[in-house]
Structures are given as C-alpha cells and as structure tokens.
C-alpha cells in the first residue's frame, strides 16, 4: 500500500490512505462506518410504508430538529426566576425569528411524543417485539429499550414545559411534582429532590433546565443509538421473519467446490450442504443504497417540511408570568398527561402512581409474557387477533366511558358520605375499576383464546382507546374547577356561583 499525497481538502480530512488496488478499495469499504450503518441489502418488505410507517425515523428526525433548535434557544434564554419569562417574551417580540424558533421547538416536542407513542403502537400491533429465529436476536430487550425511550421523551417534554416560567408552566410542574409526592413512604423526599426545596422556585428551574438541556438529551441519544444498533443485531426489522419463513421452504444449497488458503497453499475441497434462511434472495431484496437511504432522506424531508409549515400556523402560547399565589382555572398538565390528570382527579395514589407504574411495567413485560413466535410482522397477527382486537377496543371503550360516567355523575365521596378513610377512596374509585377491567380482560381473553398474543392484543387495544378517551376528556371536556362540559357547552366567563 503506497501512501500518496492526497489531492483535495476533503481527502486530506477524511481519508487516512488512498486505496491503490481493488483489494485495498475493498478493505476501505469494510472499514467504513457509514457504509455499515445499514446492511448491504434490505428486504422489500422492510421498506414497505404500510408495515413500519417510518415512525422510528420520524421520531429521530424530530429529535434532531429539537436538538438544533434547542441549542439556538439556549443562547437566547436564562434559567432565572426573575428573567426567564422575559427572555421568552423577547423571543416572541424582540428576537428576529425568535417566535419561529419557539414554535418549531414546541411543535416538534409535541409531535415527537405523538410519534413515539404511535411507534410503540405500531411495533406492538405488528408483533415486532418477538424474538423470531435470527441468531443473536433479542427483540424483546429492544422493546424494553423502546419503553425507556418513551419515558425519556416524556421527561424531556415535561422538563421543557417549566422553562417559559408562565402560569401554564408553573402549575403543570406543581401538579406533576405533587403526583410524585403521592408515592408511599418517601414521596415527599422525591418531590423535594425534584424541586430542590419545598416550593417550585429557582432551584426547581435550574434543575429542570439542566435535565432538559444536558442530562436527558444525552441519555435519550445514547439509548436511541443502542436501540438502532440492536435492530441490526436482531437481524433487521421484525418483518424479515416472514422472508426467513419463506426461505425455510426452499431447497438447501447443494455442496459446491471450494478453494481454501491453507498454510501449504491452496487446498480444494467440497462445501457442506447449506440451508441458510438468513440469506436474502435477490428477488426479495434491493441494495440499501440507494433504495433505503433515499427513502430515509424523503421521510426526513417530509418531516422537516411538515414541521416548518405547522410552525407557521400553530402558535406557541405564553400565559401570564408564573404567579404562585393564583392558580389558573382550570389548571392543566401537558396534553399527554391529561389522561393521567383525569385519573388523578379520582385518586392521586392510584391515578398518579399505581396505575402508571403498572402500565409501564405491563408494557415492558409484554414480550416476556407473550412468547408466541408465529406470524411475526403481520398487523394484529391474524383473523383471530383482529377479532379480539376489536373486542378489546369495544371493551376498553365501554369501561372507560363507564368509569368516566361514574367519576362525573357519582363521585365516590357523595356515594359514601360517611366514610372518612382515605385508603377506602384510594381503593374504591373509577381508576381502580378501569385497572381491574384491564386485568379481567387479559385473563378472560387468555382463557377463551388460549393465546398470550391475542390476550395482549385485546388488552393493548383497550389501553389505546382508554388513553385516547381519557386524554380527550381531560383536554376538551374539563372546564373550570375540573367540572364536566360537553364540547358545545360554553365555559362560564366568570367564577361560578355555588
């Protein structure tokens, strides 16, 4: 290998040597990281839009935009109780395109939460958390990493929520950190550690700021890299299991003549008969470059364009400066926590701690509870899965509506006016009922269908509809004093007389 002087600046910067032969060029390809980001060939099924919907890619692109816009915003913001609000005001009215930066950052944050949730729904519904038959595959663990990423995304969004230091921010964080305080035994300590004191103040602002701009983004980036690396180690997107299934039917490759380099020279011999289901057929696959790379570029472009257009039409609200003395009415958390806030309005312990913990634990355990390996990568698995999925949706719809109706029409304290025990109301309330209905559904479907996959599908579908309904109720149907209002009912303009 000869080291010739490199011609251009680009070569000087990125090439350590210039390949002089085909063999050296081959080694250069082998050593190139970027060329190994994706596999050499990718199956047509993996590329299909209707399987993956490219939601993971979209989430990551949004994270990229958030990082870039966030770093610019860091130059234009001081996390101080006295100044923070006025820096945001300046962003909106004094800084060139400051309003646009804020809007881009905010809309991306909301879209990313939505995209990550949808990504999880997609992976679950297509059964893509299953191990499959690839050697070294550990998709169940990658699903757990995905849950960690979901939690990190929610924390990132939540910590960013406080930074404008307006009424919305202040009270969302007051409510959110008080939910943490309802953890039994050491809840108050957790709250004080989060706040850095007993009140939402300067200590809280700087804590949330550092978490938001350094700690959580780095953690999310690291886990996201791990998440994507695992996809390669798991043998690609789960839908390739269908290709492997098909390959199992083809004839083993017959023994062929081989040449091997041994110490003594070239030795000829015969290979063994091979049935390699992992090798993708030329007909089933295309080279990653350009077929995958151009698609990823297209998804990136579309995401960017949608974000930029949305930022032009969706304003980033800024309420009055934070005022600990006046609680806005109604006081609401960010939209993705409003389902939780609805449950918290029944019981802080069940709605704020027990139920989210069980949901997160349940989500993380899905691939370990359901180890069935058939029909990976098909939406809702099969006919029976679709049927139980619809049943889950209906079940979830009915129980959620029932729980909401109980919560609105028959508040527990009015039904049992003589009981003073808090434990009683923590146990007997609509949130507990909803949780129980999920447990019953899981075991009912498990017994009737004797399939963990269909039981999981039914429960997950019920979870999706409950999440959507509760979020919608918290967002649209709750007015001043957290009273119930139909969408067509106007909220009272002044304080309600009692």
């Amino acid at each position, binding site marked *: 290998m000869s080291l010739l002087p490199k011609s251009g600046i680009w070569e000087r910067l990125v090439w350590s040597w210039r390949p002089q032969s085909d063999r050296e060029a081959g080694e250069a390809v082998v050593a190139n990281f970027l060329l190994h980001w994706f596999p050499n060939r990718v199956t047509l099924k993996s590329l299909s839009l209707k399987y993956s919907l490219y939601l993971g890619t979209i989430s990551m692109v949004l994270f990229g935009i958030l990082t870039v816009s966030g770093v610019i915003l860091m130059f234009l913001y001081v996390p101080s109780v006295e100044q923070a609000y006025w820096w945001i005001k300046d962003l909106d009215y004094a800084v060139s395109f400051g309003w646009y930066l804020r809007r881009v950052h905010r809309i991306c944050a909301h879209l990313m939460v939505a995209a990550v949730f949808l990504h999880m729904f997609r992976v679950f519904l297509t059964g893509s958390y299953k191990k499959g038959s690839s050697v070294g595959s550990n998709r169940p663990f990658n699903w757990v990493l995905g849950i960690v990423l979901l939690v990190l995304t929610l924390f990132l969004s939540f910590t960013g929520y406080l930074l404008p230091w307006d009424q919305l921010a202040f009270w969302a964080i007051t409510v959110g950190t008080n*939910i943490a305080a309802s953890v039994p035994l050491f809840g108050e300590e957790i709250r004080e550690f989060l706040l850095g004191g007993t009140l939402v103040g300067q200590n809280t602002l700087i804590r949330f700021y550092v978490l938001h701009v350094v700690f959580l983004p780095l953690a999310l980036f690291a886990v996201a890299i791990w998440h994507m690396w695992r996809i390669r180690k798991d043998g690609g997107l789960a839908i390739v299991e269908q290709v492997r299934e098909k390959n199992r039917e083809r004839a083993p490759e017959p023994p062929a003549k081989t040449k091997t380099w041994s110490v003594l020279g070239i030795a000829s011999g015969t290979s063994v008969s091979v049935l390699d289901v992992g090798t993708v057929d030329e007909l089933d696959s295309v080279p990653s470059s350009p077929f995958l790379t151009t698609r990823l570029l297209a998804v990136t472009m579309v995401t960017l364009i949608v974000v930029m257009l949305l930022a032009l039409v969706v304003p980033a609200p800024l309420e009055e400066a934070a005022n600990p003395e006046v609680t806005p009415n109604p006081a609401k958390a960010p939209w993705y926590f409003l389902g939780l806030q609805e449950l918290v309005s029944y019981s802080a312990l069940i709605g704020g701690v027990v139920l989210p913990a069980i949901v997160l634990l349940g989500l993380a355990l899905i691939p370990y509870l359901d180890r069935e390996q058939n029909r990976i990568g098909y939406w809702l698995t099969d006919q029976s899965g679709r049927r139980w999925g619809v049943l889950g949706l209906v079940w979830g719809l009915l129980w959620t509506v029932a729980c909401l109706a109980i919560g609105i029409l028959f508040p527990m304290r009015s039904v049992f006016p003589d009981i003073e025990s808090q434990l009683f109301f923590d146990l007997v309330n609509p949130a507990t009922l909803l949780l129980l209905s999920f447990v019953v559904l899981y075991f009912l479907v498990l017994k009737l269908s004797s399939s963990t996959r269909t039981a999981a599908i039914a429960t997950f579908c019920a979870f999706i509809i409950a999440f959507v309904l509760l979020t919608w109720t918290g967002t649209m149907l709750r007015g001043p004093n957290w009273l119930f209002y139909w969408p067509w009912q106007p909220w009272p303009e002044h304080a309600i007389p009692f």
Partner: protein
Amino acid sequence: MSEATPQKGESRRGFLTKLTGWLIGLGLVAGSWPFVRALVPNVLYEPPRRFKIGPPDLFQEGVHFLDEHRLFVFRHENAFHAISGVCTHLGCTLKFSPFKQPQELTVRKMSYRSEGEFHCACHGSRFRDEGTNFSGPAPGPLQWYQLELSPEDGQLVVNMTSVVDRDFRLVV
C-alpha cells in the same frame, strides 16, 4: 495432592474476582455520593414559615385570603384562626366561595356556622370552611396553623410550622 487443590485455587480466584467487583462497585457508589448529596440543599432561601400579618384590627369580620402566604384568616367577633389555602391533593391554591346565607353545619361531630366552601381549580376538590374535604380527590383536610400575638407590637403572627386542632381560636 488431592483433587481439592485446584478447586481451592479456583475458589480463591473467584473470591478475588468477586472482591474486586464489589470494591469497584463500592468505590463507584462512594465516589458518586458527594455528587448526589450536593444536590440535596442544606439551606433554602424560601419565605419564612413564621411571619407577621398585621394588627388584628386590619382584619374585619369574615374571611381573608393572604395571597403571598396562600393562607386564609378567619375573624368571628374577637376570635381568629388561620387555615392553609393549599389543596391537600396536588398543591393548587384554593378559592373561597362564600354562601349567600351562612348555614349551620355539623362536620365531623362539630357544629358551627359555615360561611362558604373552598374550591380547587385543578381537580375539583371541595372543602368545608373548617377544612374538611367533602368532594373530589383531596386526600385529607386542610391544616390549621397556630396564630399568636407578637409581644413587641401586638401584630398577628402565623406559625406555619405548628399545626393546631380545629377548635383553636386566638381571642384578642
């Protein structure tokens, strides 16, 4: 030499490996302890929990909300008492909603003349004006704080570090 010797050697190696692991683990925990401990504040620059709120004559008959302290001060003739204005559910500030006519109520075996109710904007909890939660998710009653008279200038002093019973009254 018996067969036990290599096994003994292996267990020594295993022991040393484990010991190294534990020492590294302990070292990491001990080494990162200062970093975590530094994040638990020793001094808080928060508003004092015991403060003067003015002379008794400042407060007329009825209910007064002291917004900077999130506190309700009640005066009935010459008797004063103070109730927390922070919802026991998730810490939102309560609003006092007066009745048109005072009502005679019996709450938790105590009869009194009720002027109104407390309402919470966040999750719709409601409290009697003697502090008992009766509707919504609030897990407990509002706290009553001790009231004192300052010996220096006769001002009312609220002591939020001292929680008192429902029958507490400061008679001036």
